[in-house]
């Protein structure tokens, strides 16, 4: 195939179509009565938090000594108490010799804090990561059971896979939270992670099974003929090859998991989706926030697919 042929007119066409779509969308939103307030969004990522420091007793400001960004304020009490406070130099609210009453603000310290969207993003990230790792382990074990010679292991794994794949994740979450959460006394976070992990595990198991079965029989025979037992042959010969083949569907599964994790907001885990809803209640910037939330999910998933593509390229050396 000749890929060097002039593709730029087609690229231009792609851009033109996308631009037209965006323009159409923009024109449509012009028609409705909606005021875009993008400026309200950034503070929900990160904001400058101010902590005011009150005077602990009646008295007066004895000395103020400035040390770069920080300033030390020495306060003398009417009953002879003495205490020193440190505030940010640009947050100072008193002068030397000023008379103070208990509760008067001496000054403020400022620091950057993560806003709810960033906190929610972080929750989604580690929740999905934990569920992915556990789901991978569950899937690997179940997948191996699925291809084992033992009928009980095989039936149990089929039962698990059918049970999980045949019911909606949302319902599973409710069962995990309300039923298992109550019976086994597990926290909502644990309930959320286990529901996601067990859900992903069922799909991973089927991917792993397909991967193992796609490896030619001769590979296992060659490994066995060299004296390896089944676990050794699995670890050194079959699974590395199966993993390489199943990397694209596995990556797809974990990308799905990140997106599906948005459902944990129904059991009141403050993930990215729930944070978004909370921010909307205080800003009324519904459109903007949902766009931002969508973009953040896209960010997570595209990073993951880039990583998967990179691993795939690394493994392709033996092709």
């Amino acid at each position: 195939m000749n890929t060097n042929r002039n593709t730029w007119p087609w690229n231009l066409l792609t851009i033109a179509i996308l631009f037209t779509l965006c323009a159409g969308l923009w024109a449509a939103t012009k028609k409705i009565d909606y005021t875009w307030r993008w400026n309200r969004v950034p503070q929900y990522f990160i904001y400058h938090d101010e902590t005011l420091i009150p005077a602990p007793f009646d008295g007066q400001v004895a000395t103020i000594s400035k040390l770069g960004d920080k300033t030390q304020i020495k306060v003398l009490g009417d009953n002879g108490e003495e205490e020193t406070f440190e505030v940010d130099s640009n947050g100072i609210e008193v002068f030397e010799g000023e008379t103070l009453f208990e509760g008067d603000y001496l000054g403020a310290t400022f620091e950057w804090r993560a806003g709810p969207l960033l906190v929610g993003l972080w929750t989604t990230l580690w929740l999905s990561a934990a569920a992915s790792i556990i789901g991978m382990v569950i899937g690997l074990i179940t997948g191996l059971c699925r291809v084992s010679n033992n009928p009980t292991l095989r039936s149990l794994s089929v039962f698990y896979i059918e049970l999980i794949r045949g019911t909606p994740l949302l319902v599973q979450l409710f069962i995990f939270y309300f039923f298992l959460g109550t019976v086994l006394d597990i926290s909502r976070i644990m309930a959320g992670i286990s529901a996601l992990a067990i859900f992903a595990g069922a799909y991973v198991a089927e991917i792993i099974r397909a991967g193992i079965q796609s490896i030619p029989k001769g590979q296992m025979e060659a490994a066995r003929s060299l004296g390896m037992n089944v676990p050794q042959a699995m670890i050194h010969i079959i699974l590395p090859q199966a993993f390489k083949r199943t990397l694209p569907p596995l990556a797809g599964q974990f990308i799905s998991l990140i997106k599906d994790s948005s459902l944990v907001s129904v059991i009141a885990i403050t993930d990215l989706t729930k944070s978004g809803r909370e921010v909307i209640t205080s800003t009324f910037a519904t459109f903007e926030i949902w766009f931002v939330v969508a973009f953040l999910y896209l960010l997570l998933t595209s990073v993951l697919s880039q990583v998967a593509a990179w691993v795939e390229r690394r493994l392709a050396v033996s092709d």
Partner: protein
Amino acid sequence: MIKTVDLKKTFVGRDQTVHAVDGISAHIKPSEVVVIIGPSGSGKSTYLRCLNGLETLTSGQIIIDGVDLSAKKTDLNLVRREVGMVFQQFNLFPHKSVLQNIVLAQQVVRKRKSSEALEKARMLLQKVGIAEKENEYPIRLSGGQQQRVAIARALAMDPKIMLFDEPTSALDPEMVGEVLEVMKQLAREGMTMVVVTHEMGFAREVADRVLFMDQGKLVEEGTPEHFFTAPQEERTKTFLRQVL
């Protein structure tokens, strides 16, 4: 070295039962090179695969180096270390380089140190004549080269017996020679070999004994001279007329 007594292997399918190996008794002595020939479907590959436990027996007995393979308490993995096998389709591990292919089982099964395994692997690659390919992946090698790596991989386990299952049947004609040459060298060194092949030239030149199988049964056996010049059985004569 290898003794099989009334060996039977039956495959039970949905609508037919195939007696792939139907009562074979044979005795293979140390350092003997035995070539098994026969038409396709005669059960010669199945017989060979029984000898290292890749197929489970339906009935009969196999005794290798004094160990009864059919006994329940026998650890087949211990037997397989002593019995190397070379496959028609090479079955090299595609995700491992040539060197790693030969090193892996030495480390995993024989628990050899990495330096020792590498030394052995390089020595064997030298022997089969592809030392310069040690870092290539199998897919970059020709069929003949892959089969030679497969032979080196089996030899790395220091087997007492080598089984060859149609080692040249998947090769382009111009590569058959290089693989047969390695096998001849092995035979000269006194390796006990059981070879399933269609290479009559190899059988004539290298074999100490030729077994002719048809429909799961041992039809005739004898020295190559006897076998190729004065076969007794009508079935053998017909087969030889077709292939020679």
